[in-house]
């Protein structure tokens, strides 16, 4: 029997939508490698409005629409219950692929426990097994190593952000409204009191940014950060920092990349004026492409980097930003 892949959407933010598209792309490739199957998108929420039509163009065979007041605020408990309701409708074997956003990363534990199947997070590669389980490769120890695990069916997996491409080309889907049973899940005792605005920033959050630009002591002081921010803006990059400059109070702790900060794995990581202490390396060494700029040619960062420039960051940053802007504007150097 051909398998079904269920993707649950995270439509709450642009980043969530991108993560949803990546999950659809991953699930499509997974099915294609196995001779095809049905790709189903679960769209959960309340007062979804125009999103119904938008999601119908994301490339699933079918969109199951669960528009219910009990799903207005994301709660793992109610969402796992609603997801189980969908899984019961689908023909088995079913694999559940969750986006690498906070929704998917939170739901994977709860839903796999609920379905009494295997589950894991941060998947880099997926492969369907004949038993209906999934084989997953995922990073661990901050990207110092990777493990491959075999998850028994029904398997639930959440993806590493930026690890998969969206489906191409997206096809229109059939939209099927689904009603949830009454009464609902458990206590569901949470009330949203307030939603705080996303801090005004023209750079994406670190852990999901496809490009990250990080600065260290080699920038000589917090007053030079505008140079780094210019490069980040030109690249559409998230802004990171080494522990040294966070400890020195130059940058907020939220920007710290490394063992005690964020762990990132973007397509491109640019380390500027960072020597590459082990505690920084464990947080970024699984990035696809690493660029290092440092005055000291013996700095450990050059050992893990793919490309390096030995030189003063303050001198190199402005022309680099300029060159990136030209390329982005379509002027090839």
């Amino acid at each position, binding site marked *: 029997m051909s398998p079904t892949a269920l993707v649950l959407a995270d439509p*709450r*933010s642009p980043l969530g939508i991108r993560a949803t598209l990546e999950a659809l792309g991953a699930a499509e490739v997974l099915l294609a490698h196995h001779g095809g199957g049905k790709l189903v998108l679960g769209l959960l929420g309340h007062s979804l409005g125009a999103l119904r039509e938008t999601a119908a163009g994301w490339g699933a065979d079918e969109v199951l629409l669960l528009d219910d007041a009990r799903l207005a*605020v*994301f*709660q*793992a*408990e109610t969402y*796992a219950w609603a997801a189980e309701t969908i899984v019961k409708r689908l023909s088995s074997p079913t694999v559940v692929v969750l986006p690498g956003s906070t929704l998917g*990363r*939170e739901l*994977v*534990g*709860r839903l*796999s426990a*609920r379905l*009494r199947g*295997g*589950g*894991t997070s*941060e998947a880099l590669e997926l492969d369907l097994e004949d038993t209906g389980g999934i084989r997953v490769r995922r990073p*661990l*120890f901050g990207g*110092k*190593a*990777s493990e*491959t*695990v*075999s998850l*028994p069916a029904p398997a639930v997996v959440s993806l590493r952000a930026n690890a998969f491409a969206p489906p191409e080309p997206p096809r229109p889907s059939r939209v099927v409204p689904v009603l949830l049973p009454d009464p609902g899940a458990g*206590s*569901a005792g*949470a009330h*949203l009191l*307030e*939603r*705080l605005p*996303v801090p005004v920033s023209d750079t994406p959050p670190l852990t999901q940014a496809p490009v990250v630009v990080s600065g260290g002591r080699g920038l000589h002081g917090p007053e030079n950060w505008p140079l780094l921010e210019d490069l980040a803006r030109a690249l559409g990059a998230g802004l990171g920092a080494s522990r040294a400059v966070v400890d020195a109070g130059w940058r907020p*702790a939220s920007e710290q990349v490394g*063992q005690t900060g964020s*762990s990132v794995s973007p397509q*491109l990581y640019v380390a500027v004026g960072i020597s590459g202490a082990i*505690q920084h390396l464990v947080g970024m060494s699984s990035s*696809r*492409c*690493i*660029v290092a700029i440092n005055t000291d*040619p013996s700095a450990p960062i050059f*050992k893990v*980097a*793919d*490309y*390096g*420039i030995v030189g003063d960051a303050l001198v190199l940053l*402005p*022309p680099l930003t*300029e*060159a*990136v802007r030209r*390329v982005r504007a379509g002027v*090839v150097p």
Partner: protein
Amino acid sequence: MEAVVCIKPVPEADSRLRVAPSGATYDPEGLRYTLNSTYDEAAVEEALRLREAGAIEKVHVVSLGPARAEEGVRYALAMGADDGLLLETGPGDAFDPGATANLLAGAIQTGPHDLVLVGRRAGDDETGMVGSALGEHLGIPSFAFVTGISVEGPSGSLRLRRFTEAGEEVLSVSLPVVVSLLKGAQDPRTPTLPNILKARRKPLVHQPLSEVLARLPAPPVRSLPVRFDLPAPRTGARLVEYQNPSEAAEKLVRLLREEAKVL
């Protein structure tokens, strides 16, 4: 109101990992273990501050691991937790995060657990799954990516702040509840010598895993490790040669665009 904090000993960050002879996992031999880096310490600290604020009466610590995991539990007791429970695994026992949550829940549900706290993720396998899976096994709500807990509003409820990509949310949640902290209290306390000595006399129960397993309605579902890979050592950066900064910038951008294809 009583809190349970779950902690996990993990290999230290600078550990030299080796692939085990089976090829399916890493070799724990010779690794130094720590109380789960800063994430667990932050969770313990958060619970202690809630106790000091009068919001909770007791802080229990529970861990699943081999006998040496006692050290991490003792450390949490020295920080100020009231008592500890170690679900002791035997040689060769390996549990994935889902099974771990199932076993922890089996032990936690036998005692008071108004607030169950876990850190952001384990420093080794980094799945971040245990908190929400615990919620499911305990049959209570769970919330992850929480950045702050406060005792406000009606009794029997807590106020949580959590991170979402669409902005932070403030939620009122009813107890009992499982909370996975994105970040806990900053600057967790370091145990003082008197507290380290006091912690030696605090109750710490070793419970064999077989007792917990016997209580579960069904054996935990387990994933199978297939392969463990250490990345091939990187060969080192290709350095851009240049006469002036503009040339360096142009050359780098060309490499990123044409060779690495990341621009």
